[in-house]
């Protein structure tokens, strides 16, 4: 197992190398440039040239690439042309926010999706089943930003149950050693800050988790429906086992295999979904930051952030594969 993990981690090197080349070329093929974006439409050729020299953009692309790679391996991605701060610093600020949001969205999607899918399958054809099937269809069909606005309007603006934006109450005096606000509150013993951060997380997490939730419900339901007709479930019944033993050991363990795969794929996608959700809720995370970086052609930020996101995607999928091996002995790797 350890060998497998190491091999997969080593695979990251060629993946990131290939991706960095693609990114580099692709970004520079975009119309306009950082100088143009910084200075506006009526910038003089002279001032554009000055900015380009400042960021080394006047050099040939391979020279730029070499400089970028040699710095990047030391985790230095340069400075943002937009905020003028080191990209690494921006990462440390924004990634914890988005990771916290993504985890909350996943917890919401898994925590509700698997039980709902299971009971829908067991009560096949009942009102609960019909509701979950049509509800999950709706969940997939409604665009995230629309759902986010609706949630915000109903639960924040109208009912006032949840805050409308941000990660915490600005009046909250809290320390943030990790940047994961809920965890920070627990670590520093400031449970009030944890609760405040949690309340701020609810609506964005529900909005972001709605599509994974819908998919998890459907996959769980279909998978459970398949598994309950398997011969080994009949064998378990023939042994006279209690229903809860049959459910846990014989039905769920098998039915969750495809669900784990889907969870992994969805976890990776959460980062792109976060762009819309974070924008609606003014949630200061990666999504919002990348959105700004794209509109300002902030090469350094885009290169650094996209590479890190890709690496995280690979790691998440590695975790999925490892957990797959833990559940299913047949795919356990040599």
């Amino acid at each position, binding site marked *: 197992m350890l060998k497998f993990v190491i091999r997969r981690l080593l695979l990251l090197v060629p993946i990131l190398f290939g991706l960095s080349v693609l990114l580099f070329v692709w970004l520079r093929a975009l119309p306009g440039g950082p100088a143009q974006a910084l200075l506006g439409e009526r910038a003089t050729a002279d001032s554009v040239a000055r900015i380009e020299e400042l960021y080394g953009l006047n050099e040939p692309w391979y020279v730029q690439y070499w400089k970028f790679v040699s710095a990047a391996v030391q985790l230095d991605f340069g400075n943002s042309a937009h905020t003028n701060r080191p990209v690494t610093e921006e990462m440390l600020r924004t990634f914890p926010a988005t990771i916290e949001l993504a985890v909350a969205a996943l917890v919401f999607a898994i925590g509700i999706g698997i039980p709902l899918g299971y009971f829908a399958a067991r009560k096949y054809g009942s009102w609960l089943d019909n509701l979950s099937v049509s509800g999950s269809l709706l969940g997939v069909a409604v665009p995230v930003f629309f759902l986010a606005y609706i949630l915000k309007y109903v639960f924040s603006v109208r009912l006032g149950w949840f805050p409308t934006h941000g990660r915490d109450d600005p009046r909250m005096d809290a320390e943030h050693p990790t940047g994961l606000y809920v965890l920070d509150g627990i670590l520093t013993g400031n449970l009030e800050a944890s609760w405040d951060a949690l309340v701020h997380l609810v609506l964005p997490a529900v909005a972001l988790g709605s599509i994974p939730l819908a998919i998890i419900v459907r996959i769980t339901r279909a998978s459970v429906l398949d598994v309950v007709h398997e*011969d080994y479930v009949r064998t378990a019944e023939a042994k*006279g086992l209690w229903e809860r033993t049959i459910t846990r*050991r014989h039905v769920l363990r098998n039915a969750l295999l495809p669900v784990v795969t889907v969870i992994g794929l969805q976890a990776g996608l959460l980062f792109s979904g976060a762009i819309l959700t974070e924008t609606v809720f003014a949630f200061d995370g990666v999504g919002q930051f990348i959105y700004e970086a794209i509109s300002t052609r902030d090469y350094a930020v885009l290169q650094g952030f996209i590479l890190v996101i890709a690496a995280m995607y690979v790691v998440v999928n590695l975790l999925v594969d490892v957990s797959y091996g833990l559940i299913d*002995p*047949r795919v356990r790797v040599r």
Partner: protein
Amino acid sequence: MSVSISEARGPLLDVRDLSVAFTRKGSPDVRAVDGVTFTVSPGETVGLVGESGSGKSVTSLAVMGLLPPRGVRVGGQVLFDSDDLLTLPRDRMRDIRGRDIAMVFQDPMSSLNPVVPIGVQVAEVLERHQDLKGEPARRGAEDLLARVGIPDPRRRLKEYPHQLSGGMRQRALIAMALACKPRLLIADEPTTALDVTIQAQIIELLKELVQDTGASLVMITHDLGIVAGLCDTVHVMYSGRVVESAGRRELFAEPHHPYTGGLLASVPRLDAPRGAPLHPIPGSPTDVLQWSDGCAFAPRCPNRIEPCTGGPPPLESIGGRSLRCLNPLTESEEVPA
């Protein structure tokens, strides 16, 4: 609960007029089993024989209470210890399954949970019915695996079904079935999915275990070789009904029903000359008549006469055997050679 002597002497399992119909909205019911009656005495081995679709597996699932809860109508009685299993509450039935009545299924690969170690799958029966936990249950499982002839049982406990051969898997399933020393074992084509050489081993093992524990065995099969080597009494089923019942010797020596005769004749014989034609039963089990219109076997029957298609033939008892046929085979036309 004390068991009176008269009860103890009576049959262990008494299936009376069992019928199973699959119902579906908008289409007529499908009668898979119709008026099946047979008994199994303590220590007896009974064969249920027939082609696919003859209702033998459905009969066994009905006895076990394993038919799907919806879309099925079950009638008649299944008496076990003078309890009617068909009307027993679900939890009582769960207590009986695996402890008093156990079952071995056809395909050992799909009948084992692929993601749970063999040891857990054996031990869970002991945990459920004998209140063993942890180490004693594990040791019990190890003993059971050793008993069904699985070498190195301690190591096998931790292995998964895909790491075992087909024969080993079927042995493991037999170990699970025999874990609580059931009084009745139902084996549903236990050798169909196995290699021929393994088939004989598994049958030998079943025979030996049943003799050792004194359990009764209901062997469901289409293989007359297995019946010949194992069963005391044989019930031949066709299209959901028993068409002929007899002791093993009588049945093989003198089949009365043309279907039984056809089954026996269709077994290829080693002593037949090379190139001698095989004798299949013409047609397929799907060419049936509704029993209400006549004998279901009539469309394929070489002995068919006019009255066969004029109404359901009754099951008649003649000298210790029963037969559902209006024009049975006579001695001269038995088993075409």
